[in-house]
């Protein structure tokens, strides 16, 4: 059975003139899968996850979680899911343990079973030693861990993580990504939203790419990359600013996509790298520039996004 089925979901804020945050989005997530929603800020990822968390009612379409409708059976849906919100949502004047106890109670847990489970979760998130300290005394990374731990208390079948690594240090991020993999290995289905391509690539079985409220592509990484065809990615570094050259190269046949230059660095999607590389060098020489670095690679999700939308993932 599919864990989550979303069909032509639609949500508009402040109709009739307000923005359409989710516009006819459809996708499915299989049991035991890690599914990432990838897209830039404002793509509609958080709105989609809010609908699947039963926080918002859709204006159109339907979504089921674990077979239960989000609109008609929200209490049953909530019993299946754990939600890790994007912002830290904890009671700062309570300790880590007190927070977990409270949230456990909100999931209907009590007594010795709850105490035991809180101990397990504290072990899982590595905060056993600091469990009695108030949350407002924790570092950002520690707060994130409690933020995740609070969603795991009731052993949910599905876990939603809404951009859980925004603004944290690399070590904490690494820890979260490893933690997600461990949970998935234990059988939890994960819906993960991010605008970091690397995370989506590392974690996901399948990825849904969203932009401006629409789902523009869904599939495994290979399937998505194949959308850009048999193309090669060429990464270049020039010794000077490259926007003029980038514009020239876009016009060349055989080059399907050129990224926006970042100082002297840019990448291209080309159909035949062997044929095109001499022309790239010629073009650079003609413009008085020198290519200082060049490498070839397989296309990635960022290139897929650029190919599909014409814009960079981080625009």
């Amino acid at each position, binding site marked *: 059975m599919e864990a989550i089925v979303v069909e032509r979901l639609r949500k508009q804020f402040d109709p009739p003139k307000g923005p359409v945050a989710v516009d006819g989005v459809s996708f499915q997530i299989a049991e035991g899968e890690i599914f990432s929603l990838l897209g830039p800020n404002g793509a509609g990822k958080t709105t989609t996850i809010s609908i699947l968390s039963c926080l918002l009612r859709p204006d159109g379409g339907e979504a089921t979680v674990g077979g239960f409708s989000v609109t008609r059976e929200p209490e049953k849906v909530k019993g299946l899911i754990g939600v890790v919100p994007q912002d830290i949502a904890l009671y700062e*004047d*309570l300790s880590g343990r007190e927070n977990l106890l409270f*949230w456990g109670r*909100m999931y209907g847990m009590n007594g010795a079973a709850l105490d035991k489970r809180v101990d397990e979760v504290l072990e899982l998130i590595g905060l056993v030693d600091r469990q009695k300290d108030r949350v407002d005394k924790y570092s950002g990374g520690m707060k994130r861990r409690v933020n995740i731990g609070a969603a795991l208390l009731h052993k949910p079948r599905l876990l939603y993580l809404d951009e859980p690594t925004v603004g944290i240090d690399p070590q904490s991020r690494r820890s979260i990504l490893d933690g997600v993999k461990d949970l998935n290995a234990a059988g939890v289905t994960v819906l993960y939203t991010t605008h970091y391509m690397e995370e989506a690539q590392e974690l996901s079985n399948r990825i849904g790419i969203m932009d401006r409220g629409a789902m523009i592509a869904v599939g495994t990484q290979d399937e998505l990359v194949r959308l850009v065809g048999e193309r090669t990615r060429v990464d270049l570094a020039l010794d000077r600013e490259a926007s003029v050259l980038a514009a020239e190269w876009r016009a060349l046949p055989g080059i399907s996509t050129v990224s926006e230059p970042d100082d002297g660095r840019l990448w291209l999607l080309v159909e035949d790298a062997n044929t095109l590389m001499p022309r790239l060098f010629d073009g650079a020489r003609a413009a008085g520039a020198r290519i200082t670095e060049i490498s070839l690679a397989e296309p990635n999700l960022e290139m897929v996004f650029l190919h599909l939308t014409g814009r960079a993932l981080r625009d």
Partner: protein
Amino acid sequence: MRALSIAWKDIRHVYRNVAGLAMMLVAPLLLASALGAAFGSGDNFVIAAVKTVVVDQDAGAGAGMPAAGAALTGALTSPDMADLLRVTKAATPEAARAAVDAGEADVAVIIPPGLTAALMGDGSAAAEVQVYKDPALSVGPAIVTAVVDSVVQSLDGARAAALTSAQLAASLGVTDPAALSEVATKAAEAFAHRVETGAPVALEERSPVTPGAEAAKRPNVASQVLIGMMVFFMLFGAATPARSILDEHRQGTLSRLFTTPTPRSTILGGKYVSVFVVVLVQSIILLLAGWFLLGAEWGEWGPVIVLALCGALIAASLGLVTVSFAKTPGQAGAASAAIFVFLGLISGNFVGTANIGGTFATVRRISPLGWLLEGWGNVLYGGSWASIALPVGAVLAYALVFFAVATYFFRRRYA
């Protein structure tokens, strides 16, 4: 059970908040103590001596004759009046008025030059004693006016006694002027003596007897002062935990609560319980502190407990309904403060409200606080269950309505 978990979490949050505790407990006790100092402890209100300046222009009738002006001045400076009046003398009426205008005196008593002559005359000439008061004051001048009026009436009464006796004697055939004069003088003296020893009609003051009370009870200063403060600050005591709904919305924990299987009605119910418990504890502490520290006498404990519960209910409902209109804690703070003071003022919360009866009594009952204070007033004045039945019913009805309104707005906002 989950509602109680939410309530317990919120209650703990309140009691870890030093600032909130200060507002709920320290402030009303501080204010009540200050007001106790203002009005004096014990059973009676104490006010400052009235600064009175006297100008006596009355020359009197002649050597050896008592002067009316001197009698009036003597009444104002008598030892009996020493606690109430602080009397100084001025040379001229202009100087006396100037002293009042400059704020150096509260009242000026200006005795005209021909007072004794007018009293001793045939009634054709009149004399007017002037009381010139500071228009910003009322109680002090009223006291002085009452004293002066009393003396002036006595002087005129003595004159009337003298003339009446002379006329009466003449009507009975007494024609000797010396005899007439003697009877008149004796009548005047007898009048003056009788005024001092006991007037025929006395005006006695008492507090109203509350229904259910056996006799009139006069609540002491602390009780009267503290009850208004307590009711008023209970509103702020309720607004503080009520604002936690907005705080939670802002910090994201409210949305997180909504993602759990806990129904929204349970979440809201838990918050209502926490607000009620917090303000109930506050009122119990204030009642006990008032009784123990300030000597307040609340009345029969049964009705007192019921009124405390009702007060907590109405305060909780008012706190929640004012918060339900606001979007941020700052807005909620401003809104609740303004509404509470408005309600307090029209309910007659604060000492010194002009009781002019009629419309004001009706307006008071528009406010739930007015009903609550009416109930407390009845109990303070010795009433029992019967005297609080209607106020309690009204307060409960208001609380129900406010809870319903708050629920409507919260559900609409967090649907």
